[in-house]
């Protein structure tokens, strides 16, 4: 239950896609290990060479709530819906669902279904790519178009196994063409901060005003900002999702010109604005790569959205 016994909002679902061997299970294990106070529910599939680490599942403090088997493939839509319903019914209810798509599924199709379910909300689509093999896979006679479409449907691409690739820069440049709307994060062993994959936790009060980028995990920065009242949240979300801003994620609450509080979320180029839960305080957390995201640019976006919300000459 949310604090104060309120009706919990829809359960966020992050889809983890990518072809076999790209590191989906490694990423999920890493997220479970870093879950912190989050109750993560995980839907795995496909039973790859690498199992989900059961010691993580059996964590005594009950923070990791469940693991279900089942093949998440768009052809078995009804299983997807019933498995998700099962997770949402868990007590205590999970905070977030990580849904591993099958190696040949289109994560965009799964997100389409999730988007139609009343108790769930799509958080974003993370697609893993094996830096060593992804270009060969994308040229494969049978798989090529599937792999390219998976990448193109991503909000964030985790370019994994960069330590094994001869020329990760070249792969990243190539990905930019294949998946123009995705943000690309390089990684080894799917080693990325949980905030980049699942976003920050905001239950209405979690954002603390910091007004500056600060070091986070190596390679990443998080900006915690206190946006002024009277911001057009749609305009701001659109600006933050602009590839030029090079943010991975942004999340928080802003006050509209009419005083109402709006929740804003950006994952790569995907953005959503909804009504904020009661009692939410203004604040915005932006996450980016240290060598890419520019705090000044974020502040400029906020100012732009602020003026944009006012009637002009």
């Amino acid at each position: 239950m949310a604090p104060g016994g309120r009706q919990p909002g829809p359960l966020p679902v992050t889809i983890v896609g990518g072809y076999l061997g790209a590191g989906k299970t490694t990423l999920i294990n890493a997220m479970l290990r870093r879950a912190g106070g989050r109750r993560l529910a995980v839907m795995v599939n496909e039973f790859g060479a690498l199992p989900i680490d059961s010691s993580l599942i059996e964590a005594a403090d009950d923070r990791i709530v469940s693991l279900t088997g089942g093949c998440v493939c768009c052809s078995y839509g009804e299983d997807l819906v019933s498995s998700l319903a099962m997770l949402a019914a868990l007590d205590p209810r999970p905070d977030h669902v990580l849904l591993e798509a099958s190696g040949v599924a289109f994560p965009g199709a799964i997100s389409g279904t999730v988007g139609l379910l009343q108790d769930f909300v799509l958080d974003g689509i993370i697609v893993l790519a094996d830096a060593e093999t992804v270009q060969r896979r994308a040229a494969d006679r049978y798989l090529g178009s599937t792999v390219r479409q998976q990448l193109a449907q991503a909000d964030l691409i985790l370019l994994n196994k960069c330590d094994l690739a001869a020329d990760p820069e070249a792969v990243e440049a190539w990905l930019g063409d294949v998946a123009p709307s995705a943000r690309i994060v390089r990684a080894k062993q799917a080693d990325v901060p949980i905030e980049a994959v699942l976003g920050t936790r905001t239950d209405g009060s979690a954002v603390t005003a910091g007004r500056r980028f600060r070091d986070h995990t190596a390679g990443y920065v998080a900006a915690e900002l206190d946006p002024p009242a009277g911001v057009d949240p749609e305009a701001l979300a659109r600006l933050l999702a602009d590839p030029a801003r090079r943010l991975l994620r942004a999340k928080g609450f802003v006050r509209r010109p009419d005083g109402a509080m709006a929740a804003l979320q950006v994952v790569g180029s995907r953005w959503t604005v909804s009504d904020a839960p009661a009692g939410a305080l203004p604040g915005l957390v932006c996450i980016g790569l240290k060598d890419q995201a520019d705090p000044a640019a974020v502040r400029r976006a906020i100012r732009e959205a602020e003026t944009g919300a006012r009637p002009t000459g």
Partner: protein
Amino acid sequence: MTNTIYPARKIITMNPARPHAGHVAVRDGRIVGAGTLDELAGWGAYTLDDRFADKVLMPGLVEGHSHTMEGTLWAYVYCGFFDRMDPEGTVWPGLKSIDEIVERLSEAAGRLEDPGRPLAGWSLDAIYYGNRRVNRHDLDRVSTERPVGVLNASGHILNVNSKALELAGLLKTGLDHPGIPLGEDGLPTGEMKGPDAMAPLGPYTGFDRDLLSCDEPGLRRFARLCVRTGVTTAADLANTLPDEAVDMMLRVTAEPDFPARIVSLRRFYGVTPEELIAHVLALRDCSQNNLRLGIIKAVADGSIQGFSARLRWPGYYNGAPEGLWYIPPEHLLEIYERAMAAGVQVHTHTNGDEATELALDCVEAALRKHPSPDHRFTLQHCQMADAAQFRRMARLGMCVNLFPNHHFYWGDQHYGITVGPERAERMNACATALASGVPLAIHSDAPVTPLGPLFTAWCAVNRRTATGRTLGEHERIGVADALRTITLGAAYTFKLDGEIGSIETGKRADFAVLEDDPESVGGAALKDVRVWGTVQGGRIFPAAGI
């Protein structure tokens, strides 16, 4: 040790040494022999049973690809465009207008007591109502109180009423999903297209459970349909076979009056390839006469009419994208390799020709690693295979089970929309398969199309579409080949051809008992051959009493 000898008007044996006989002798559920009364009297004491004296006997028909779910679906309201016989023998007239659909659903709704209980229909075929699509307003005329959902014949569209949308939280504007058309009011029209759009409605319309693992009443209904269509052995082609289902099927099929032999394949789902092989080997040991287990089913791609089959270049005629893989190629190869090594048979659903090509590549690679004599790996549907692919199948020792019913039900759509004229004419190339020496079966995929091997044979012989076009004259096959295909041909794909599929000494006493002679009515009338019932394992099942 007394034999029963049945004289018949004609016995079509499928035994080339004596293709026809006048009598068949049966003992202990098996065939002692077929021949003249004199010849059969030589086996010793007999009683003469002349109940089939004016009937034609054929080997019990074998449906090589159906799903017992056909029996389950008859618990719902039949909403098809074509007449269809239910398990009790009632022929439900095809519904020729949307008003008729609404009327039949309303009647069924009137019989339900609980006002909130969902009403589910099936087999609606939206393409036959002109430009007019069934929408939620039509189904609101059935009920505004209870959710109503009607599954399309193709299985790819679910039509729902406003109540169902409301319960699913989707009766709202602003939806942006490729599978959800919106009306002028901005609300969904009630047509949910494709599994992704259908899924959220499942729990509210009664289509939420895994329909492919059958239930007990469904299995019993399915078996009654088998009797009515002359079928004595039928595949249940894609079951995950959980323990409860296996226990139920073992119990029900062992009953003294259960009239059919079910070959239930274990669909690859929810386990690793390694676990799959172990499960199938364990299942194989549980087999009993009327329940055969131990074969794997894999699904490579989707369906042609759902535009999810994997097509080779140049793809779909209407420009739709090239379809979906339902299994990573590596997994298909791994299953094949492990299955070849363990001596387990695999049947693979491939619809598009690219999926067929992948399966052929994987079989070839697996065979190099584990040379496997007489593996009989079978491609199911395999609708778009070209001549070169059939030649490869033959060289690789594979079988094929083609789907000629498609020509009748969707042939015009394949011609005009999905694959285009040229490939529509080569689809389900039965003649090429036979000429290439590929062991051939043909199927209904019931409930996708109705169970009925004689109808399927008619489709293969005539290749007529619903509007009367002959689709691919040169791929038509003769009546004799068609009849062999729905008996021995299908039996071969399950390695049961030594046991069933022909009427000769030592085989199971499985007969289709017919009122008409399929060899003399002519190919155009094959679908109209009347079925009296069956003999299965020597037990007599008149359709009228089932």
